[in-house]
């Protein structure tokens, strides 16, 4: 590719030399016969240039598109594997602008900039060399104009770098506002806050605009100087060349060729402005992208032979038991979950959310976790599939610290349903099949039935109906039931359910509770619940208060002995 670029440039430079031959040779000697080969040579050179350029662009275009794709895929993959708290901290628009705008800047530079740089430097060197050969002192003078250009470029570069980074950051902030407004459009509508949101957006857009204008005026002065220098040099050449011709140091044809060649210097120098600008942009963009690549995932997969040995032939990929109809998990003894004096605090927050959680779940036991809003129930649950790591103590699954377990294995062993059901843009079937890719249709149906999600069969395309953001809109209760079906279909060793019935009506809740009762019988489960009705599922109830497990026991027992628990359940007022 570089060879093609060099060859094409060489061919291009050779054409003015033909001009010299025509003027000095054919015309001066009135040699018509010489004109034909010279003309043909020019055409041949032109064709060669074009062919070489075509090859170069083609190869390069493909390479650059592939490069952009590779970086984007890597970036996406890396982001997916970064810990959840990274995503809490980073504005979504900043991530998006890195994956789109910044990568395009890099591609643009890799696509044109690098080659332009190469070609213009080569052209400059070659042309100056030729000029020196044609007339050494005139050539040297011409070459000297590069010095102020270079000085000027470095000064410009420093200022441009700052502006280009500023634009990229501001565009990222703007993208954040745009994304928030797009995803939160219902809230903005419900509250009629379109105008305020638009004002906020406009303010940020004005900032971007201002920086862009500043960038443009910097470019304007830079480019005008880059216009000025080579043209001034040409003027000088004409005058000095004329003097040279008078002193017979140069032929007239030589001067014309010299000037034609010197004119070829104008473009590389002007292009330098564009190259430096786009190079600077690509550099700051690359810096922004690297900031993400440099972030290491905090939650790393463990590699414990012990864990594998225990799991038997299942190994890494095969999570323990599945199948909704089965009783307990194979072996019947798996799923002992022990929170061993676990404490946890969120990064940058001075107060620990969980202080000293000591809770043991026997295999097959269902513990319902109760606690006030903000007590830390969700936080505790998220520690089990390692969406965050404990900051003190340890969580042990069947005696092994979960940090020593392979991450995919752990997450297969732990099934979850979150407070706010997240469905993916895929068919109902694919959404439900996540935990158990090889489940049969009967098993899917059983899971959907247990979760009272049979409505899925009545969707326009049945289980193949696409749902999620890019698919059909489901109501909150429907989403929650599909998510529940997904969690129970996998029949994981440990089931984590965060307020799984909050969006269900009384009748449906009753049915789901009953179905869950049988399913949970053989599964270790940790369930968050607010309603007394869900407590029926519990083998044991744990009360989370003040970052510790304040009490555990039977629902009735706790009602009688724990005023905090009774208040949480508010039995007396309700029945009144």
């Amino acid at each position, binding site marked *: 590719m570089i060879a093609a670029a060099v060859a094409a440039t060489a061919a291009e430079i050779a054409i003015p030399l033909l001009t010299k031959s025509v003027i000095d040779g054919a015309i001066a000697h009135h040699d018509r016969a010489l*004109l034909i080969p010279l003309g043909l040579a020019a055409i041949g050179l032109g064709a060669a240039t074009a062919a070489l350029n075509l090859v170069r662009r083609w190869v390069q275009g493909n390479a650059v598109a592939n490069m952009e794709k590779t970086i984007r895929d890597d970036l996406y993959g890396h982001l997916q594997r970064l810990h959840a708290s990274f995503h809490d901290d980073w504005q979504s628009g900043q991530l998006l602008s890195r994956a789109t705008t910044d990568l395009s800047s890099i591609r643009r530079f890799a696509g044109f900039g690098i080659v332009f740089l190469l070609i213009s430097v080569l052209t400059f060197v070659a042309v100056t060399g030729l000029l020196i050969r044609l007339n050494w002192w005139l050539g040297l003078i011409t070459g000297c104009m590069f010095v102020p250009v270079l000085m000027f470029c470095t000064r410009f570069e420093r200022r441009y770098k700052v502006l280009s980074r500023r634009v990229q950051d501001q565009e990222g902030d703007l993208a954040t506002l745009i994304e928030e407004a797009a995803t939160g459009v219902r809230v903005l509508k419900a509250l009629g806050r379109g105008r305020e949101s638009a004002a906020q957006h406009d303010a940020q857009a004005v900032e971007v605009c201002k920086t862009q204008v500043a960038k443009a005026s910097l470019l304007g002065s830079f480019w005008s100087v880059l216009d000025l220098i080579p*043209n001034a040099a040409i003027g000088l050449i004409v005058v000095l060349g004329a003097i040279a011709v008078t002193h017979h140091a140069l032929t007239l044809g030589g001067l014309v060729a010299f000037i034609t060649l010197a004119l070829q210097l104008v473009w590389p120098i002007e292009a330098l402005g564009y190259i430096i600008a786009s190079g600077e942009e690509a550099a700051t963009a690359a810096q922004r992208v690297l900031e993400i690549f440099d972030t290491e995932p905090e939650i790393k997969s463990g590699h414990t032979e012990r864990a594998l040995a225990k799991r038997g032939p299942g190994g890494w990929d095969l999570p323990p038991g599945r199948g909704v109809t089965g009783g307990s998990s194979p072996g019947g003894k798996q799923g002992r979950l022990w929170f061993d004096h676990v404490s946890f605090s969120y990064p940058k927050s001075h107060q620990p959310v969980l202080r000293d959680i000591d809770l043991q779940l026997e295999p097959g036991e269902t513990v319902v976790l109760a606690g006030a809003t903000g007590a830390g129930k969700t936080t505790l649950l998220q520690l089990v599939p390692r969406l965050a790591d404990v900051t003190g103590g340890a969580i042990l699954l069947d005696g092994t610290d979960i940090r020593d377990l392979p991450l995919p294995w752990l*997450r297969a062993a732990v099934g979850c349903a979150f407070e706010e059901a997240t469905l993916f843009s895929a068919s109902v079937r694919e959404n439900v099949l996540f935990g158990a890719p090889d489940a049969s249709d009967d098993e899917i149906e059983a899971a959907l039935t247990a979760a009272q999600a049979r409505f899925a069969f009545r969707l326009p395309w049945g289980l193949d109906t696409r749902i999620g953001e890019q698919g059909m809109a489901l109501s909150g209760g429907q989403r929650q039931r599909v998510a529940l079906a997904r969690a129970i279909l996998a029949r994981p060793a440990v089931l984590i359910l965060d307020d799984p019935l909050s969006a269900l009506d*009384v009748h449906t809740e009753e049915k789901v509770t009953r179905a869950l009762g049988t399913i949970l019988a053989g599964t270790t489960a940790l369930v968050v619940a607010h*309603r007394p009705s869900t407590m029926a599922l519990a083998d044991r109830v744990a009360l989370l208060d003040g970052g510790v497990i304040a009490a555990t026991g039977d629902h009735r027992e706790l009602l009688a002995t724990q005023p905090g628990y009774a208040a949480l359940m508010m039995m007396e007022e309700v029945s009144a």
Partner: protein
Amino acid sequence: MTADAAWRGIATEQVDEVTTGLAALLRRRSRLLLADLLRPHRRGVAWIAAAIVVSSLAALAGPWLVGVAIDNGIPPLIHSGDPAPLLRIAAVFAAAVGVQAVTTRMFVTMTGRVGQSVVLELRRRLFRHCLRLPVAFHESYTSGRVISRQTSDIEAISALFEEGLDSLISAALTLLLVGTGMLLLDWPLALVVLGGFVPLTWLTGWFRRESVVAYRRIREANALVIVHFVETFGGIRAVQAFRRERRNDAIFDGLSGDYADASRRASQLIAVYAPGISLVGNVITGVVLFYGGLRVIDGDIRVGVLATFLLYLQRFFDPLQDVAQFYNAFQGAGSALEKISGVLEEEPSVPEPAAPAALPSRGSAAAEPSRGSAAAEPSGGSGVVPRPGASGRQVRFESVRFGYRETTVLPDLDLDIPAGQTVALVGETGAGKTTIARLMARFYDPGEGRVLLDGVDLRDVPDRVLRREVVMITQESFLFGGSVAANIRLGRPGASGDEVIAAATAIGAHDFITALPSGYETGVGKRGGRLSAGQRQLISFARAFIAAPSVLVLDEATALLDIPSERLVQAALRTVLAGRTAVIIAHRLSTVAIADRVLVLRNGRIIEDGPPDRLLGGDGEYAALHTSWAASLA
């Protein structure tokens, strides 16, 4: 015309093969938008055009002056040692170079200014328009597409102004001037050069046809990449918990592969087009060398003329190379503009009233004179705040029929909620409760029948007024990335710090907020991720309380709260919103206890209606519900 109307708005986005007629329609639409955007900058554009013309003229004067110097400046110097003609020419040359530098600077700067103002205006319009478009549009178009239109597509247009426009115009001018110059110098030779236009035109036509298709594909593929990106990182916890990473990698690989294919195609087109132009230029140079040489030998023209011609040829074809490069940017911006103009063309299916009707003034007319007049003028500003103690408004559904797409959800709903009444709406999931709530908040308009607020059809109430009067809080509490206080203030932007605290205190959120690291100024993180789900619900409740609308719609808004917190919220409802109309959708019947009236909904029909006590005494659905609920508590 009717055929065209079918392709209004975003309808063309899903079309793979765009027919010529449709392409013309899209082009016309983008052109109209562009003209509209540029109109306020007519003077700026005129200045830019002037600057470009002068700068191109100055740039062209250079080679011409070099030719003149060779023919008229050097001979006197050689033959009579007279440097005056050459120096004169050199002075003019210096002046031309100076003018070129100044005008170049001018047009680059001004193009930046005008271009960025246009981009800013486009951003503004697009953002506002997207907010105006109904929920139904957003549901099918997806947030990712809305985002990609406002980020990537806008940036494609911005890039055009950054680097494209001037070279396009100056190249056109150069062609014109150089062409004229050549014709004046020696028309037979000039005709040879102009003959090159035949292949050039053909080549350009081919490139345009192909690259329009390629760039359309690029924009669409890019949007899909963004859609998937946004969706993944909006729900990253679920992605990780369900080990969706591999599958996502595969999906993303496919999408970004499509995008790479599309951009590869575009770069291949330019890989053929740009060398194609230089080939034509070089062939013509060869022909000119030969034919011009002959003419010089024959004495038809002088050597200087030939030299000028050769210099001109370079000026002629070099900018075409640039144009090829920037034509690319131009096509990219063009298809981005096509997409954007499509979104802008979408009509809100829930439009603003053409003739807004005033709502009757609330409460006693004497006590609240400003209310009616504020309602009458939609631009009434946010200064008008509902006063505590103001009464609610009546809501009436008149033979309302509604469904999403094909399915009918509400077959025929008649419902009258008198001002100040608190109504509980219960029923199984999927019964249509949320749908009723959305109709009250005018997220959709009914297919048939009317929804009336104090006797005024919601379709006649300006959005500004409606949003002040009716506020809906849903189960999905969406928080924005700012502070807690800013999120509460979303209910009423003018609210003072004390009012924010009062609202938070009323619903029992004050304690947890003050426990946060920076109290009310704590950032809630992306989508409120630093708060628990229940805390987010409390914050969105606080919004409703501070907004203090005359009609409050709560759609399972307390579902994620623990019972004591819910109690607190209810107590606040009773005191702070006393006298206002409220519709409460809830599954926990404890919530229903505070209602004056209960409606039981099944399959979109009201099957029971009455005060809770009376329904409880009967043997209907509500009584059954309550029995099983009470049983669940034991």
